[in-house]
């Protein structure tokens, strides 16, 4: 497939400032905490100090007597009047409510909500709520949770096992029996998350006159209005979620459904606006946004020449105390289960386990980054086993560009790619020979240094078919997105989108696409957000889907506007539309450019001159476009083969790390990321997400962990324990662009919202291991903290002595 010329597009791919930026740099963003509703009250929470306990009694008398207090709500009333939040997998007894009722299942779980005139008064009163607990046995370790006799997190479910299935795609056992070599090892992904700088917040207001509950929230979640309404036992049209709230970062985690149901209930009950803004401890401990926490038992069968024949992956994931969507984070990786490699037989055994920890929530990549890490550790281990160059091994097993579209054993078809070219380009950009020299010089000078490589896929397009794969009772195969385009009487264009944004630049995306199709200046195009009662259907910006889905929807609506304009001109020129040419918003007769109707004239006919409007064209000038994810819509086969995402971007990471042998402290010396996400609509935005994704990956690989003590307490409840990389830890990075267009999308674009994060942890882990190799040491668990690295160095030295 050819790389498109830049000139093919007028605005797409060109440098363009983001439309959103001016309001943010001037302090005029409108985040949820900035919304002040008249008479608004504030919520503070009483949280469980125990990992597991029976609630014996709650005495709210003293709290209710405190100044400014309106209400102390407990689980007994709340759970009787609301329904459980959605349970993704088929586990109906694993119900989940915002407030604990009778029993708490993790330290930090909300036990009561106090509403007062100010947050400070609510916190004062929350300290006066007397809760008597009877501690129960708890389990924190996921393997212990699976052992017979383990304390049960949800006794009604009968087990701590939430989901398990063994998929076998292709002749796995045959390959393992006949291959020349086999390796087995365990890779461990530590519990971390994307932890946005803005905590989750929500404000709600019940209007008894209209019977509408208005909600402003810091959200990024599919079906959020619907789920809120269901849990509150309200019809969908009684909940109005305002999408014009700026979201201060999300990267998957801003779900906040339990917060919203709680605040919605309180606002309706009390008849006053109520808001809950998490403080940082609530966010880290009880905000239900910790990410995957899993180990991978990896087995590979391969030949002496490096050909990988088969792979077995057993992935055991700790979802914490409740289910939600978290088990599905084991399902998405099915769509890229063999990575960029032509591995013909794969066994995959996802296992989802409950423990007495904070519930897991969606995190950037939805489980793909941990899987990529495990696969890439495996590739490096195969290379080490064979004494083969890691790059050669990858090149040997890469799917070749002439093999696309390429169907992997688990049933997904990769749309396009050129992995060899991207890797080679990245090696050239970072000057691999000099990288090797730098590593070897550092080693000869007595320092530890290593080069890390990872090459992996970035599935995009957000068709959440892992739901139907993992829950046979779920037949949801529709994952549409939409856009409405209006051209008003003045000729100004407005794009209406149906979701909130957390920095992805959707206003820039839509204005660029509309400008491209309609050949109008994107600068002058406004993009607004419908609320959930006026919105067209959307599945929100998850799964790197918006460049594809919202971009495609905007293009579809703009094309319809363009067709209408051509039809109006054809009617007025009394000629067939094929004789006409659209340019810059005007329509002229081919070969007679002086015979034309300009944009303003066409708009005026559409709005005001019905006598000049052709039959069958609706007056006014507006168009909507709703579309389903390309290649989506099917149920899985009985063996669990399914097309999940439509588009597959590729990234190749190269990193040089030096380690201080005395402290175990790593320092990233050089970083390059080759990236092919097809046609970029706004390169600055794509690069920005990639840089940010790499920074997240650095955090997950080296610093960030939600550690728990033996007694089930979160030991990382502040930013002094949960370590987010700063500009001192994140190095300067180089991004190397490549473009293999997707044949499935409007402009050849693929998604890129999870870029960088999907390959950085793997590359860093491989670099640390390359650095440790001369000592004979290896680490396969993330995060590779200074201490973990130092321990590996120290034990290898002791062994040598």
């Amino acid at each position, binding site marked *: 497939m050819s790389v498109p010329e830049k000139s093919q597009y007028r605005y797409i791919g060109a440098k363009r*400032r*983001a439309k*959103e*930026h*001016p*309001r*943010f*740099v*001037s*302090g*005029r*963003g409108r*985040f949820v*905490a*900035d919304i*002040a509703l008249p008479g608004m009250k504030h919520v503070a929470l009483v949280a469980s100090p125990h990992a597991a306990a029976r609630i014996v009694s709650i005495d709210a008398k003293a709290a209710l007597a*405190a*100044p400014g207090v309106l209400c102390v709500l407990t689980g007994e009333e709340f759970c009787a009047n609301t329904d459980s939040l959605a349970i993704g997998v088929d586990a109906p007894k694993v119900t989940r409510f915002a407030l604990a009722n009778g029993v708490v299942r993790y330290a930090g779980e909300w036990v009561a909500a106090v509403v007062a005139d100010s947050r*400070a008064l609510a916190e*004062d009163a929350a300290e006066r709520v007397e809760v008597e607990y009877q501690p129960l046995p708890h389990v924190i370790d996921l393997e212990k949770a699976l052992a017979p006799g383990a304390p049960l997190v949800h006794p009604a479910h009968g087990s701590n096992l939430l989901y398990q299935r063994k998929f076998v795609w292709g002749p796995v056992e045959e390959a393992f029996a006949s291959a020349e070599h086999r390796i087995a090892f365990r890779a461990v992904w530590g519990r971390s998350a994307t*932890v*946005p*700088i*803005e*905590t989750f917040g929500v404000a709600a207001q019940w209007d008894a006159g209209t019977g509408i509950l208005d909600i402003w929230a810091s959200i990024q979640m599919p079906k959020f209005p619907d789920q809120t309404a269901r849990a509150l036992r309200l019809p969908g049209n009684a909940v109005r979620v305002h999408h014009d709230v*700026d*979201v*201060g*970062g*999300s*990267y998957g985690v801003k779900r906040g459904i339990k917060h919203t149901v709680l605040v919605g209930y309180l606002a309706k009950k009390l008849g006053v606006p109520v808001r809950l*803004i998490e*403080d*940082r401890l609530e966010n880290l401990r009880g905000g239900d946004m910790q990410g995957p926490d899993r180990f991978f038992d990896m087995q590979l069968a391969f030949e002496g020449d490096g050909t990988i024949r088969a792979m077995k992956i057993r992935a055991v994931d700790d979802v914490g105390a409740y289910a939600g969507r978290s088990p599905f984070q084991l399902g998405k990786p099915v769509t890229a289960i063999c990575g960029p490699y032509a591995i013909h037989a794969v066994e995959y055994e996802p296992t989802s386990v409950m423990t007495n920890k904070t519930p897991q929530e969606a995190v950037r990549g939805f489980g793909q980054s941990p899987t990529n890490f495990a696969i890439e550790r495996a590739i490096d281990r195969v290379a080490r086993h064979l004494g083969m160059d890691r790059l050669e091994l990858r090149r040997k097993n890469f799917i070749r560009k002439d093999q696309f579209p390429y169907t992997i054993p688990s049933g997904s078809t990769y749309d396009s790619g050129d992995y060899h070219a991207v890797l080679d380009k990245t090696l050239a950009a970072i000057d691999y020979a000099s990288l090797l020299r730098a590593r070897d010089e550092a080693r000869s000078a007595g320092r530890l240094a290593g080069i890390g490589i990872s090459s992996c896929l970035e599935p995009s397009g957000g068709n959440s078919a892992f739901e139907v794969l993992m829950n046979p009772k779920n037949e949801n195969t529709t994952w549409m997105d939409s856009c409405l385009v209006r051209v008003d009487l003045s000729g100004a264009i407005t794009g209406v989108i149906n979701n909130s944004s*957390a*920095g*992805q*630049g959707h206003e820039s995306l839509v204005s660029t696409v509309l400008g491209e199709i309609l050949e109008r200046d994107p600068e002058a195009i406004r993009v607004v957000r419908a609320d959930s009662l006026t919105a067209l259907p959307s599945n929100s910006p998850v799964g790197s889907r918006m460049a594809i889905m919202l971009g495609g929807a905007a293009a579809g609506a703009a094309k319809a506007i363009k067709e209408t304009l051509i039809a109006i001109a054809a009617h007025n020129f009394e000629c067939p539309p094929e004789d006409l040419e659209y340019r810059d918003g005007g329509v002229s007769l081919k070969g007679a450019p002086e015979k034309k109707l300009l944009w303003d004239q066409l708009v005026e006919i559409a709005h005001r001159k019905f006598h000049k409007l052709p039959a069958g064209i609706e007056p006014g000038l507006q168009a909507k476009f709703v579309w389903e994810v390309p290649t989506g819509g099917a149920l899985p086969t009985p063996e669990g083969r399914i097309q999940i995402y439509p588009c597959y971007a590729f990234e190749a990471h190269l990193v040089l790390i030096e380690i201080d042998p005395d402290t175990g402290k790593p320092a990233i010396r050089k970083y390059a990321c080759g990236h092919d996400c097809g046609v970029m609509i706004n390169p*600055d*935005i794509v*690069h*920005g*997400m*990639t*840089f*940010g994704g*790499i*920074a*997240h990956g650095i955090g997950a690989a080296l610093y960030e962990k939600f550690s728990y003590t033996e007694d089930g307490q979160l030991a990382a409840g*502040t*930013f*002094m324990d949960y370590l*987010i990389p*700063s*500009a*001192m830890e*994140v190095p*300067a*990075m180089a991004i190397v662009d490549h473009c293999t267009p997707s044949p499935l999308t409007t402009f050849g674009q693929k998604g890129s919202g999870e870029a*960088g994060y999907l390959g950085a942890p793997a590359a860093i882990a491989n670099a640390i291991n390359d650095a440790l190799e001369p000592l004979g040491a290896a680490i396969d668990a993330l995060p590779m903290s200074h201490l973990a690295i130092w321990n590996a160095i120290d034990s290898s030295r002791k062994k040598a002595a």
Partner: protein
Amino acid sequence: MSETLHAVSVEVNGRSRSAQVPARLSLLDWLREELRLTGTHVGCEHGICGACSVMLDGDPVRACLMYAVQASGHRVTTVEGLARPDGSMSVLQDSFCETHGLQCGYCTPGMLIAAQALLNANPDPTEAQIRDAIGGNLCRCTGYQQIVEAVQLAAERTRAK
């Protein structure tokens, strides 16, 4: 519990503001909730993330770690005070837009404060000095690269004037 109120008088973005506040009210909450200067953001409330950075007499400080009463008699500059007198964007603000030095915009006001304080003191910073100056401000979107570029661009543009 009735709270004793204390008089404060602070020059905020060039304007003198007086109020009666409880001792425990943070400078951050006073700016946001009472003066409605919501450009300064709440991030961690324990002094790590820097989202609440404001300038106090020209130096960047954490508004979450200061009480409003402590700011009395001082000059405070928030992100709303960074624009030029005519309301248009400052060189630094414009540079952030140019290099895509932000995504969600949440850490941005604090970053701008930290970076502006650096540029006021050092018009020609090295990359290492820029990283050091913003090292106390966490960003989860950008990986800092385009922020560093923005500060470099602003320095270059300011010097060229």
